[in-house]
Structure formats: structure tokens, C-alpha cells
């Protein structure tokens, strides 16, 4: 269980690097995902969660840093065959179920796209049978294969997207906010499907989201991002029980509960990055405050947090 499937080391992704419009979408983050676990990535809109996912799967070329998959650097130049193999192992589920399926293709062809590219099936009948199997895996019917995406509801479309990702038998799936465009009742459907698939096929997930309760439900460990930086990383329960970074505290204080008494007394903690008052000579680093619990902090804060723990 402790084997790391994915390791991200000092990953940086700057857009328009060197120009006045430079955007540091990801600014030096490191984390690892163990085989078979679900790593949740949360943060506000625009903090770099999706960019992290897309850079990991090479939709963007990283500015600096490494993404190691099974010890192999994803971004290093590779032969066509190696690239192909890597494409099969890493897959992605997208946020918007309405934009992630080509409206001009039948579901059959959408799901079979990966099969065709990697030459996984021979002949039309085998191709169709494989697609039907996949459709049934995600809870859809065989008749759906001959239909076009616009005939489906959001939840059904998202399941088609999952079937497409599963077609190439991946080990690692990046789920880029797979449920944020869905109705609450459908969200559970999709999340439970993802959990079942994980148990069945031993998948590893990077689950990107901003719905904190959903992330807690599905994730084993959670990383909190703020402005391109990972500010805290801990096992899910530990993070919710004992948030240490001020931003995480602020985030958790914003979760509403369907409990009027609690809601009336709930105090929101606004987060202001200036409150840290880091000196220019202080080294702000990712430090392990408690076992498996990392926080972005200065030496002084580190000491304070350690003291507070004991």
C-alpha cells in the first residue's frame, strides 16, 4: 500500500513565462499518490487544481519539476511506444459533461476512440461488444451505443466519459471536478460509481473538486491548494479534525450543514494571506507537523503548531 504510483516533485507551471502577464498557475508543488488510493485536491476557483491535473497528464508542458509515474518521468522525451503506453495508464475524466463528448459522434465511437487508437480490438463485432461491456459497467444500456451525446442527461454523459476513460484499462485516473456540473442527486450516483470501479479494478484517483464534503467522502488523503501552492496535505479525517493552516481553517469554516442550530452559531474565518506576516528572511516551506500531515509554514509557525499539538 505504501508504494507511490505517482510522485510530483517541485512541479511548476507558468503561463506567459517571463512576460508581464506571467501567471504562476502552479508554483512549486510536491506530493505523492499511493497505489490504490484516492488523493483529493481542493481549493478555490483558479487556484491551479485543474492545471495540476492537466500538467500531470501532459496536456500542458511543465515549466519545471517532475511528474514520476511508477518512477518514470512523464514529461521527459520518450519514444512513441513509451508515450503510447503511458497514455493508456493515465486517463482523465472531465468537468463539463456537455463539453467533453463530441456532439457529432455516436456513443459507440466516442467510447471506442481509445480502443481504436491503441488497437485494442480486432474487428467490428469485438469493438462493439467491448463498448457494450463498458456501457454496462457504468450502468447504461446496450441500446445507448447507437445514440448521440445530446440525447443524454448530464449524469449519463458523465458516465459515458468514465466509460471512455476506462476503455484503455488505465491504472490512474485524474477526475477533474467530475461532479461539480451535476445535480446533487446525480453526484452521489457518479461518486459511488467511481468508488465501485476503484474497488473492482484497483484504480488510483486524483480527485479534483471544490465540494469539501464530497472530497472528504471519497478521498483517503487531501491536499489543499491556494494560489498555485499546496498549503496543507493530510489524511482526510486528520485534515477535517485538525486543520492547521489558516486557509484550510477558513475553507472548513465555510462548509454549510443542514442543521439550523449549528448554522446560526457557525463563524466563518476569513483568510488573509497577509496575516502570516512572513519576514523576508523567513523560509516558508512544506513541513511535516504531525505524521503524514504537511503544512506550508515558516520556522516560527512550525514551532507554534508543534507546541499546539502537544
Amino acid at each position, binding site marked *: 500500500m505504501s508504494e507511490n504510483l505517482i510522485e510530483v516533485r517541485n512541479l511548476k507551471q507558468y503561463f506567459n513565462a517571463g512576460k508581464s502577464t506571467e501567471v504562476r498557475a502552479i508554483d512549486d508543488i510536491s506530493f505523492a499518490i499511493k497505489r490504490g488510493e484516492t488523493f483529493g485536491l481542493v481549493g478555490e476557483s483558479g487556484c491551479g487544481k485543474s492545471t495540476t491535473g492537466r500538467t500531470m497528464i501532459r496536456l500542458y508542458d511543465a515549466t519545471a519539476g517532475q511528474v514520476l509515474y511508477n518512477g518514470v518521468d512523464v514529461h521527459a522525451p520518450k519514444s512513441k511506444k513509451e508515450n503510447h503506453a503511458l497514455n493508456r495508464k493515465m486517463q482523465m475524466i472531465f468537468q*463539463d459533461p456537455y463539453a467533453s463528448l463530441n456532439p*457529432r459522434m455516436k456513443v459507440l465511437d466516442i467510447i471506442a476512440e481509445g480502443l481504436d487508437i491503441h488497437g485494442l480490438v480486432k474487428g467490428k463485432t469485438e469493438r462493439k461488444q467491448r463498448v457494450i461491456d463498458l456501457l454496462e459497467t457504468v450502468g447504461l444500456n446496450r*441500446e445507448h451505443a447507437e445514440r*448521440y451525446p445530446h440525447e443524454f442527461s448530464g449524469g449519463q454523459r458523465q458516465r459515458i466519459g468514465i466509460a471512455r476513460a476506462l476503455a484503455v484499462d488505465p491504472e490512474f485516473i485524474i477526475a477533474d471536478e467530475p461532479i461539480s456540473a451535476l445535480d446533487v442527486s446525480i453526484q452521489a450516483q457518479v461518486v459511488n460509481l467511481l468508488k465501485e470501479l476503484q474497488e473492482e479494478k484497483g484504480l488510483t484517483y486524483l480527485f479534483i473538486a471544490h465540494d469539501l464534503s464530497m472530497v472528504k467522502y471519497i478521498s483517503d488523503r487531501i491536499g489543499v491548494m491556494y494560489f498555485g501552492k499546496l498549503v496543507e496535505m493530510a489524511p482526510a479525517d486528520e485534515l477535517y479534525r485538525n486543520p492547521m493552516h489558516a486557509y484550510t481553517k477558513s475553507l472548513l469554516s465555510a462548509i454549510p450543514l443542514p442543521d439550523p442550530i449549528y448554522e446560526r452559531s457557525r463563524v466563518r474565518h476569513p483568510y488573509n494571506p497577509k496575516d502570516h506576516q512572513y519576514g523576508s528572511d523567513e523560509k516558508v516551506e512544506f513541513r511535516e507537523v504531525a505524521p503524514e500531515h504537511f503544512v506550508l509554514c515558516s520556522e516560527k509557525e512550525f514551532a507554534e503548531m508543534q507546541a499546539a499539538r502537544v
Partner: protein
Amino acid sequence: MRNENEQEKLTPEDFERVTIDAHHSERIEKPSLSFWQDAWLGLRKNKAAIVSMVVLLLVILMALIGPHLNGHAGDTQNLRHANLPPKIPGIEATGFFDGDGKLAGKKVDLYEMKKVDEYYWFGTDGLGRDLFTRLWEGTRVSLFIAFVAAAIDMVIGVAYGGISGYFGGRTDDIMQRIVEILIGIPTLIVVILMIMIMDPGITAIIVAITITGWIGMSRIVRAQTLKYKSQEFVLASRTLGAKDGKIITKHLLPNMLGIIIINTMFTIPNAIFFEAFLSFIGIGLQPPAASLGTLINDGYKVMENQPYVLLFPAIVISVLMIAFNLIGDGLRDALDPKMKD
């Protein structure tokens, strides 16, 4: 009180357990329609577009067979038969198309006077050439120029816009600056220069129309490519390992096809009009070749005395323009419902 009594009488046996079959709830009853079937259903409802299509097909048919219908050649000059008004067998008895024309203010049958036994359905011009044959020959030339110009516009425009949009970055910068320079030069100047170096004729006009005509298409295709290439289904295809060629042919082009077709449908009447305009100002086709533009130019000179020389080509060009525009409009509504105003 009665209600309560009735409720008491209900026993568990009165209820039947209904379970929802999950399989059933996922079913879609509607018949599966492809994008093109759906578009055809939409287009069929548009009466103007359907009528226009029929009219357009008739005009195209006439352009193909019209010149062979009455046995007159379009370039045979017969000065004895010059300036004859229209005369059509069968209709002549009604008083229309009976060969009557005005001579010195009086109405006379010019056919009888000139002792002409043949019928010239749409009359003849000042050189005695049959206008019916010339009209359809001219229509054929105009349509040919328009279709070829539109096809070339489409090919160059799609390729240029597609490359510029898909590869982006510096490629896009350079290609767009070139377009801006091209579009900055008035089209007419480019065209006149082109015609000066080339022999006037069909080729020269097609080159002249296409030399700047593809820019509109390229810009539309570039915008569409930019829009679609960052769509999630393209990203998904890329994470599966699809190559650029596959992405372009399977994902980008099918989605852009509707807009490309619509744009081409509007390019065709523009090309017809532009050709007519060039011929009308005298830098288009040279005699004896006929096009709708040259025919209108001929007719315009004798408009007062022989209005029929102008009338028929004017009608044909108007019908063509209206038909193409209505079809384009109908296609736009059918193919791209979002573009409706």
C-alpha cells in the same frame, strides 16, 4: 369523516409494491437522429428554402440543357435577324411574346416585316444572336465561375484558417499579419491588376475572385478551430493519445462543417455578383463569351428600345441571388440553431 372510514378499510393486500427498474429509467424513447437527419428535418420545415432549392435546381438544369433547346447557337451572328423581340410558339396568340415590337412609335410585327420564319424565344440582340441560348450559356458560365470560386475559397480558407488556429503561437501571428495586409488592399485594385497581367477570361476572373475571397472563410474557420481545440472532448482525445491529424479530421472538421457549408452558400451568390459586376464594368469576360454580367451590360445599353435584352438576364441573376441567400439562411437555421438572431 367518510374519508377516515374508508382509510380504515384498506388492508395491506390492497397495496401493490412497485419497483423502479433502473434499467428502464435509463431508456430513451425518442428515435436516434444523427446531426444531418436533424438538420434535414429543420430545413424541410423552411418553405422558402425548399422553394429556393427547387428553383435553383431548375435554373441549373436550364443552364445545362437550355442552350440546346431551340436549335440556335449562341454565337451565330445573323444581321438580318438583329433586334428581334421575343416570340414563343403557343403563347404568341395571347398577345405576349408575339414578336411585336415598336418601330418609329408604331407597333409592328417585326418577324413578319423582316420575313423571319424562325422563333427567337427571348428575342435577339443587335448582332442577331439568339438571346435564349446566350442567356443559359451565360448562366452556365456564371454558375461555373461561382462554384469554382466558392470551392477554391473553401479549400484555401479552411486550410489556412485551420492551420493558423490549430497550431497557434508564432505560426498564427505570422499568418494573421499576412491576412491583414491582404485585406488592407482594396479588392478591386488587386482584381484589376490581376486581369491586367492575365488574359481576360474565366480563369482570370476565378483567380481574381479567389485571391482575396478566402479570407472571410479562413477567419471563420480559425475562430472555430480556436473555439473547439480547447474543448474538453478534444483534450480527452489527446489524453487518449490521438494524433493531430485524427483530432482535426474526427473532432474539429465534423463540428465545423455546418458553418463551413453555410459560409460557402453565402460565398456563391457573392461570387456570381462579383463576376457580373466585373463583366458589367468591362473587365470581365470578353465577347463573344457570355455571362450574366456581360448580358446585362449589353441589355443596359438598349434598355429603352429593347427592354427584353436586359429583362431576362436580370431576372435570372435576381432569382439566383435570392435563391442562394434563402437556401443559405435556411441551412444556417437548420445547421446552427445557436446562430439565429
